[in-house]
C-alpha cells in the first residue's frame, strides 16, 4: 500500500541546514493501522508531511499503491491527495464557514460535483461516527472531539487508500481522544480503511497494529501489537524509556 524508502529531508535556517529525515524506510499494508511515535524533533511530522505531499523532500522514494509520488506534477499530486489520501490534523482544519456536513463533503466537492451517492455516503459517515445530530452546526458550535470526528469523516468521504493523521488526539481530552480512536477503529472495521497516524500518546498508539518509533530522523524500532492493548502500551512506554535512557 504505502512504501517509503531511504527518505531524506532537511530544513535550512539562515546559513545552517538541519537534516530531519536521514534515510527513513517503512511500509504500511492495506487495512493496517500504523502509528509513528518519537520525541520532539525526531521527524515524525515531517515524515507525514512528505507522505502527504505537503512539503517537498530531497531524495528517497514514496509509492502509494504502486504509484511513485516523487515524479508527479503539482496537479497530479493534488489529485492523489484528493482521491487516494484522507487527512486528519491536530487542529482539525475544518472551515469555520461551513457546517459539519459541508465540511465532510468538502473533498467530494473538490473532486467534482457532489452526487446523491456522495451525499448518502456523508450521511452514513455522520451516523457511523455519532455526529448526525450536529450535521448542520458550525465548527464553532461543537466540541473538540466532535470536530475531530468530523475531520475523520471528511478524511473518509472519498474512500481513500490511506488516512494520514497528524496528532489527531493532541488537542483533545481523554474522552474525546478515545472517541476519535474509536472512529479510526470503526473506519478500519467498517470501511477497511488503512490508517497511518503520528502521535505522542502511547494510549492512542496502543490501539494500532504496529508502532514505528523514530529517533533523530531514523527508524529506531518497530513494535507489533500482539493483541493485548495494555501490554502493548507497556511495551511502548518501556521502549520510549529505553530510548530516553540512551540519551542520558
Amino acid at each position, binding site marked *: 500500500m504505502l512504501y517509503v524508502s531511504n527518505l531524506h529531508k532537511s530544513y535550512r535556517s539562515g546559513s545552517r541546514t538541519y537534516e530531519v529525515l536521514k534515510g527513513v524506510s517503512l511500509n504500511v499494508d492495506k487495512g493496517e493501522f500504523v502509528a509513528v511515535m518519537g520525541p520532539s524533533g525526531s521527524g515524525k511530522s515531517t515524515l507525514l508531511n512528505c507522505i502527504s505531499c*505537503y*512539503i517537498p523532500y530531497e531524495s528517497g522514494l514514496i509509492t502509494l499503491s504502486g504509484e511513485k509520488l516523487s515524479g508527479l506534477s503539482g496537479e497530479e499530486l493534488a489529485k492523489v491527495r484528493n482521491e487516494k489520501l484522507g487527512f486528519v490534523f491536530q487542529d482539525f*482544519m475544518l472551515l469555520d*464557514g461551513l*457546517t459539519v456536513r459541508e465540511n465532510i463533503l*468538502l473533498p467530494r466537492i473538490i473532486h467534482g460535483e457532489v452526487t446523491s451517492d456522495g451525499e448518502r455516503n456523508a450521511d452514513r459517515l455522520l451516523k457511523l461516527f455519532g455526529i448526525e445530530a450536529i450535521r*448542520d452546526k458550525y465548527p464553532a458550535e461543537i466540541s473538540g472531539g466532535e470536530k475531530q470526528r468530523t475531520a475523520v469523516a471528511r478524511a473518509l468521504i472519498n474512500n481513500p487508500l490511506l488516512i494520514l493523521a497528524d496528532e489527531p488526539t493532541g488537542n483533545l481530552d481523554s474522552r474525546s481522544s478515545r472517541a476519535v480512536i474509536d472512529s479510526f477503529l470503526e473506519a478500519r472495521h467498517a470501511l477497511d480503511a488503512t490508517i497511518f497516524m503520528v502521535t505522542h500518546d502511547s494510549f492512542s498508539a496502543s490501539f494500532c497494529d504496529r508502532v514505528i518509533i523514530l529517533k533523530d530522523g531514523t527508524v529506531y524500532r518497530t513494535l507489533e501489537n500482539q493483541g493485548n492493548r495494555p501490554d502493548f502500551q507497556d511495551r511502548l512506554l518501556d521502549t520510549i524509556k529505553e530510548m530516553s535512557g540512551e540519551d542520558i
Partner: protein
Amino acid sequence: MKTTSIRTMKQVFSKLRRHAKTDYRLLILCNLIANLLVSAFSFLIWSSTVQETFPPGGDSMKQVMMVFCIAIFGCLVFTVYAAMLFFRCKSREIGVFMALGAGKRSLAGQLFRELFASMAFPALTGIILGPLFTLGIWQIFRLFLPDKEGTVLSFTPYSLIICAAFLAASLLLCFLFAVRFLSRTNILDVVNEQRKSEPIRDVRSWYLPAGIFLIVFGAVAGYGHPYFFETFFGIFAPAWTNLLYLPIFPGIYLIILFLVIRGKGSRKHPYRKIISRSMLKFQGRQTVNNMLIMTLLVAGACFAMFYVPITASGNLLATNAWEKDFSMRLRADQDMPDFEEIGQLAGEYRLTVKDPAETPLSVLGKDGTGQDIDENGKYIYYYQEVIADCTVISASGYETLTGEHIDIPRGTYDECVDRDSPYGPDTETTLLTNMVTGETLDVRFGTVHYSHTLSGLTVLNDEDFARISEGLDSSWQETYVQFNVDAPYGDEDEYRFSQALWNRIVSASSGAGMDSSFYSWAVKIYCDEQGETYWADNEPVSSVHFTQEDSDTFQFWSLWKYKPYFRIMEQNNLFMNMAILFLTFLFMAIVCYTAVLIISYTRSLTLALSNRQVYEDLTRLGAGIEFRFRSVREQLSKIFFLPTILGMTAITLFFLMILFANDGRISLSEGTGVVVCVLIMMVFGAGIFLFYRRTLKVVCRMLGINAKSVPEKKQ
C-alpha cells in the same frame, strides 16, 4: 433531515465569502477609498481651473506633482497591503483546500475571480464617485467665495487615464502577489501563513546616530547642492543631483528600525516591554517598511497642509501692514481715473476718500549682470546696459507719499524694500537709461527705505529724476496714486467700491498696460537695438501679455504688472485666490492622511492575526488582561505614533530650513505661518490618536482582550 447542500466549489466560496464578510469588506473599502482618492485628486489636478492656476513647470506645480506621486504611491501601497492581508486571512482556507487535494489551477481561478470582484467593482465605483466628491467639496468651498462666477470647476478627461493606470497597476500588483501566494510548493506554508514571522537581524546601537546623520546630510545636500554647484563649479546643478535627497530615506529607515527593535530600554524594568518588542521584532521587516512609507505620507500630508498657511498668513500680515488702503500705479498713456473720478465713484458707495496723494513715476532701463546657462550646463555671467525696468520716483515724490523727507545726493539711488520680502534691495545698478532719448545717468546705491506699498520703486534726487525723465513719452510715465477711505456703513461698501475701481482700471488697460510683471519694454528695445531676441518673446504670449478675458484668472491676479493694491480686496480675495491652492493641497493632505490611517490599520490587524496564537499562549501562561492590553497598546502606539512624530518633525525641520535659507531669518509672517502649521499638526495628531484608539479596540477584540475591563487610567 434534509438540508440544502452545497455541491460545487463556487457555492463553497460563496458561502465562505458570506461567512468572512469582514475580510472582504476591508479589501473592498480599501480599493474604493484608494480609487476614489486617486480619481478625486487627479480630476482636481487636471481640471482646467487648477491647471490655469498653477503655471506649468512652475515650482507650485512641481510640489503638487511631488506630493501627488507620494499620495498615489501611498494609495498603491495600502491597496496591495489590503490584498496581502486578504490573502493572509484566506490562507488557512486555501491551505485546507490544497491539503484536501484542490488543484492550484482551480483555486487560482476562484481566488482571481474573488480578487477581481473585490477590487475592480469598488475601484470603478471609486473612480465614478471621485469627480463627484471633488465637485461636492468644491461647491462647499464656493459658498465662501466672493466671486462664484470665476471659480467654476471644469474637468478634463486626462484624469481618467491616471485613474485607469492606477487601477491597472494595483490590479497587476495584487494579482502578482496572488500568483506568488499560490505558487508555494510547501502547502504547510500556506496553511500557516497567518502565523508566519519575519525575523530581522540584530539592530546595532549605531543605527540611531547613523540615521540622524543620513537625514541631516540628505536634507542639507539636497537643498543646498544648487548653491554648491553654482559657487564651486559655476554650473547649474544637473537634474540627477536631486538624488542627493535620497539618504533621507535610509536615514528614516534606520531610526525606525532602531526605535522599533531596540527602543529606549528601561534600566529599572528591563523585561517590561519584552513581549511587545519581540512581537514587533518578528514582524519587523514588514512593520518597518510600512512605517517608513507612513512617515513619508505623514510628511507629504503635512507638506501639503503647510503650503497654504505659510503663504496665506504671510499675505494677510503683509496686507495689514500696507501703509494705505488703496495704492496703484496708473499708466499715463491710458485713460485712468483721476482723483475727481475716484472721489465720485467712492461717493456712489457711501465712502469718503481720505489722505489722497499722487506723484509721477518714470520707467527707465537699468544695467546689471545677467546669468545664463551654456550648452554644458555652466553658468555664464554677462553685463548688460539694460537688464531690467526700473521704476523711479523723486525724493520729493517719496515725501509726498510717505511724509518722510529724505536727502539723496546726486548720482545716488535709494531702494524701497518690503521688510518681509525675502528679496533684498538691488545694490548693483550703476547706469539708468532713458529709453526714449537714450540719455543715461551714472548712479550708485545709497540706502534702503522700508515700505510695503512702495516696495520695488527706486528713489532719485529730484534733479536727477527731472534730468533722466526728460523727453519720456507717456508710455514710460506713470502716476502713483494712494489714499484711504472712510467707510461709515461698513466694509461691504469698501469692498464693492474696490471691485468697481478694479474693473474701471482693468477695462481701461490695453496693450503694454496688460503686461506680465516680468515683461520689460526697456529690455525689449535694448535687445532689438542689439539685434538680439528678447528671451521673454520666446515665452507663450498668454503668459506674457494678458487680455481682458484673463482678468478673472489667478495668474492675472498674481502676475499683472499694474495690479492695484486694494487692501480690502486683497484680504477678501486672498481666500478665493488661495482656495484653488488650498483645495488642491487639502486633497493631497487627505489622500496622504487616509493612506496613513489605512496602512496603520491594516498593519495593526496583521499584527493581531500573526500574534493571535502568542496571546492565547500568554493567557494560558497566566498573563492578565492588563498585561496583554499593555503589550498590544505598546505595539500599536509604535505603529501609529512613531511615523507620525518622525514625519511631522522631519517636515517641520525641512520647512524651517527652507524659510531660514531664504533670507537668513524667520520673519514675523513666516513665524505666524509656522504657528498655524503647528496647530494643523496638532489636529492631524489628534485625528491619528482617535483612530489609534478605535484600532486598539478592534485589535483587542480580535485577540479576545476585553479592553473595557482594563481600568480607564491604564488605557
